């Protein structure tokens, strides 16, 4: 028996398909095809400036990358940067979220100002901190001199040693992205019922006890998601580095970009892109698992 219900269902299917077609076209053409091409080219010697001779070389590009000191240096620094920034951003962001979650006069104002660093252009953020770190007349030196933390005669060139640059880049990133962390955690905090705090207070719990036994367990899903999102963000770090340093070994994305658009080694760059994508894919899988668990919990 063919019911009108079945007919409606079939009609709905066609309608759904029609709605998805534009998105599917764009994503296939500008996402899936490029990813496939990038995988193919990573197996080729493909040098744009070299008469565009392409030659199949198998895994040679990957072997070259894994053997090169530059790759490992960039990987090490990227990981260092990711761990440092995410840990600090989580701690700072958490306490800021606690502050602006409480009810007080002028809360709207404080919630609005913390968004400023996050909204600023990333590149301008890099330049601003570069400006702050300028030897002699930059704000960092001037403030340290004024507070007598640094003797007037001492005038360090902050960005001189490339091994320390990542720390200074981290400060800039922490300033910019801590608000993002706070906002995600704030959204999580708002879902915690006040009664839990009241009950804890009845039991005589102080600040740290409440934090440890009420806030953190309740906030765990948000914390996990925020951390994974920020790690993935930290892996892309590029803008600040181009401003701070001409050293492409500072991060995986910088190294990849340089191979592609300074030397036009498209094969090598594709292999590098795939190597860093593999790191991220692990995280993406983790993130999706957590989201699925959150969705099931709701």
């Amino acid at each position: 028996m063919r019911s009108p219900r079945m007919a409606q269902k079939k009609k709905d299917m066609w309608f759904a398909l029609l709605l998805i077609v534009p998105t599917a076209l764009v994503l296939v053409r500008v996402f899936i095809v490029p990813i496939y091409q990038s995988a193919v080219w990573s197996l080729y010697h493909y040098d744009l400036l070299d008469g565009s001779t392409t030659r199949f070389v198998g895994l040679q590009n990957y072997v070259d990358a894994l053997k090169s000191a530059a790759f490992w240096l960039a990987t090490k620094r990227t990981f260092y940067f990711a761990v440092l920034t995410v840990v600090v951003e989580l701690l700072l962001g958490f306490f800021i979220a606690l502050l602006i979650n409480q009810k007080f006069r002028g809360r709207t104002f404080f919630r609005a100002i913390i968004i400023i660093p996050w909204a600023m252009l990333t590149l301008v953020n890099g330049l601003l901190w570069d400006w702050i770190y300028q030897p002699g007349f930059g704000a960092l030196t001037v403030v340290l001199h004024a507070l007598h933390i640094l003797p007037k005669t001492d005038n360090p060139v902050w960005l001189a040693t490339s091994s320390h640059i990542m720390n200074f880049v981290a400060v800039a990133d922490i300033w910019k992205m801590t608000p993002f962390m706070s906002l995600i955690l704030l959204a999580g905090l708002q879902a915690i019922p006040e009664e839990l705090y009241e009950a804890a207070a009845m039991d005589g719990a102080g600040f740290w006890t409440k934090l440890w036994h009420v806030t953190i367990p309740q906030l765990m899903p948000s914390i996990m998601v925020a951390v994974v999102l920020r790690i993935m963000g930290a892996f892309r770090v590029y803008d600040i580095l181009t401003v701070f340093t001409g050293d492409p070994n500072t991060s995986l994305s910088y190294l990849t970009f340089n191979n592609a658009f300074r030397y036009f080694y498209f094969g090598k760059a594709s292999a590098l892109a795939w190597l860093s994508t593999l790191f991220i894919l692990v995280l993406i899988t983790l993130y999706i698992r957590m989201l699925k668990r959150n969705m099931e919990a709701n």
Partner: protein
Amino acid sequence: MSKAGPSVITPGNASPPPQQSLHRRSIRQVWFTPKSNELIPKFWLWLGLLIMAVFTLAPFIYLFTSSISDTPDLLGGRLFPAHPTLYNYVRLLTGNGAGDYLASVRNSVEVAVMTTVISMVIGTLAAYAFARFRFPLRMTMLFGILAMQILPSISIIVPLYITMRNGLSIPIPFTHAFLLHTGSLLDSVWSLIIAYTSFSIPFVVWLLSGYFQTIPRELEESAFVDGCGRWRAMMRVILPLSVPGLAATAIFTLLNAWDEFVIANAFTQTYASKTLPIAIAEFIGKHGMDWGLMTAGGFIGSLPPVIIAMFLYRYIVSGLTVGGVKG
């Protein structure tokens, strides 16, 4: 902040306090004991807020004060200018490179607006389909889209560059004809619009399909009873109710397109298509940085997103909740 712990000790109530110390205790209670449903005592709350405000605002204010400083003040290490001046802004907007800077502003506006409009239109349709219909591979496709949203642009930037260089084409299968064939798109804002659209559509679909699911089906069904088709129900009922979600998504897309640097840096060669971040990056000249121009240009470039974010932060927070955490 780390000293917040010890101060929360509740005052002992063993013996009734003498009249004299009643006043002192009440200050202590007001400032150092949190209310039962709160976490942080007032004193530590305001100390924390003060530190937070300085941490957040100081660099931004420094950017502004630098932009209104003249060169001697800038290079003399003054945090606040002795003689505030709009000299840098005048130079930026009417000087030698003014045309280039203004062109980059125009490009940025074009790219951000077009990207937002196109990805909102296309993405909303798909988001609605994912939210309302059950079809095979629905979840797989959704999570595939989520993975695309997270993947860094660097992983597909090389093939995307070649695509833009050769021009975008949609061939008709099994023939040599093309449905669409553009010329080379490098050095036009369209290369950026297309690239950004492909990066923001996954985001739009993911965020909005989550949002649409929060709108009760009954509302649509009552529209069907009134004789609306699927399409009209979507336009008349669902979209108006989704304005907060749509706004959050559009703001994110707009801010991302305004901010993007990696792809723009690779795809744009001349001021026909350079965006604001690229133009500002170029103030790093061969002969050192022009800090006055940089701070003025950077301040102007950062103002639109900062203003948008400050006024619409409510939407941003709710957008983060729906998209980032709950899925």
